[in-house]
């Protein structure tokens, strides 16, 4: 067994959450690596969709942006952006939306808009992009993010995208009937959504990560499931495929 980094463990755990039958709306960064790792390992027929309009894409290197030429070159088809948001996302054809964020709360609400006050921002973030409608239109939402008290907060500065709102039935009360965030994959653990309270609950700790590690990097009192298992370490194949993907990506982007 080779050693691996927490980021690698996070990507591998996120990839495992995806199946061959999924139609996945891919965000850039960590989600993109996880989705393509799934495609290159246990889910070769997964359909990956990027909001730039590329449907069924299979890049050999990770794109730097959501609209790299590689995504179009390897896609089954590329549609206009209005069509992507109308027929494919709003049309309810996406089984999993994969999101990240700057701030996250225990109910899977996400902030990618602003730190501080909206009108007097301390840090102005890029904004929602596709996320507000990805969050409500996909069958379910997986979130992947590294844990930190700065990112995992008691209260968001701004709710860019709805998760489970205030928990319980609050999401449905907003007229949103898709599942919402069901899984949070971090560098320390896998969290699943409690069916009643809709709060993230740790169900699996990554090898080497302790409950205290989790508690120390979350701005709310972390909940743990009755039975917390250890996340299986990345297999040799998973690690190899992921590292090859990153190596190809680095070479391609530096090659220019």
């Amino acid at each position, binding site marked *: 067994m080779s050693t691996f980094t927490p980021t690698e463990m996070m990507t591998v755990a996120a990839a495992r959450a995806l199946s061959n039958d999924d139609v996945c709306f891919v965000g850039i960064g960590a989600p993109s690596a996880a989705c393509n790792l799934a495609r290159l390992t246990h889910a070769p027929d997964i359909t990956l969709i990027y909001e730039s309009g590329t449907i069924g894409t299979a890049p050999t290197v990770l794109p730097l942006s959501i609209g790299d030429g590689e995504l179009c070159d390897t896609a089954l088809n590329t549609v*206009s952006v209005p069509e992507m948001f109308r027929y494919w996302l709003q049309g309810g054809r996406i089984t999993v939306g994969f999101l990240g964020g700057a701030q996250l709360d225990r109910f899977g609400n996400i902030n990618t808009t602003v730190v501080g006050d909206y009108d007097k921002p301390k840090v102005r973030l890029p904004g929602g992009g596709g996320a507000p409608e990805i969050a409500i239109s996909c069958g379910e939402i997986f979130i992947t993010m590294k844990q930190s008290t700065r990112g995992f907060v008691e209260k968001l500065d701004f709710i860019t995208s709805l998760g489970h709102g205030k928990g319980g039935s609050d999401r449905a009360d907003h007229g949103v009937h898709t599942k919402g965030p069901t899984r949070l994959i971090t560098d320390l653990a896998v969290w699943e959504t409690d069916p009643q309270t809709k709060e993230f609950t740790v169900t699996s700790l990554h090898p080497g990560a302790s409950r205290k590690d989790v508690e120390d990097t979350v701005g709310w009192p972390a909940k743990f499931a009755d039975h917390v298992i250890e996340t299986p370490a990345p297999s040799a194949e998973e690690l190899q495929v992921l590292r090859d993907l990153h190596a190809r990506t680095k070479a391609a982007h530096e090659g220019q």
Partner: protein
Amino acid sequence: MAKFQSLADAVADNLNDGDSVAFEGFTHLIPHAAAHEAIRQGRKDLTVMRMTPDMIYDQLIGMGCVKKMIFSFAGNPGVGLLRRFRDALENGWPHQLEIEEHSHAAMANAYEAGAAGLPCAIFRGYRGAELTRVNPNIRFVECPFTGEKLAAVPALRPDVAVIHALKANRKGDVFLEGITGVQKEAVLAAKRSIVTVEEIVDDFEGLSPNATVLPAWTVTSIAVVPGGAHPSYTQGYYGRDNSAYLEWDKIASDRDKFMDWMKANVLDRTPDIFAGRVAHLKTQG
């Protein structure tokens, strides 16, 4: 009917101080050369709109051309934040910037509605999202059949749309392919349009009947600017210059460094420079 012009003439004829303008492009086909020309000509008080304002909007803002920005994702794609945009918003440099912020779905639908001649776009969106609190241009209507509450935003109808395309034919019809974003919609929604192209060809022989084509009578001005999307890319012509996007993060992080770069690379240049910038990025036909 499309007029073939130099880029300088096209911008001078179509883009006025105070106009609303969309320099559209979705990672692919971003009209860098045209935005640089607008900066060189010193346009002021622009209301700029774009789903994904990136490097060129950072440049327009940093150079003081922009009064207001309508947008849904203001980032350097794949790299991080837009530092000139942040400086304007957080510190008012070089001056205060108004913003009207939406989601991608809202902007895409709003351009679509603009192209379709409608006053507003209706979609299922913004539920539980806090932009509804800060943007009065997000409203809701009820479906008259089901009672479902649907989001509404005003159609986007810029004075000018500026896009980069693969090629035009001699009549002035324009062809796009690959990731086409909202460019067709932006041109059809706009009062006037400027299209930069890689080349002019005699005809479009061999294209699919369903290709993305803007007829000449929907376009105002066409300027040939090979490489005009750099460091963005043009499908089948040259690849994306990812290193330039990574580099931008450093250039834009400092006001002086930014101004020096703009002088050396934009103010003291002409559109001819773009062809050379993509020489090492050419794709194999």
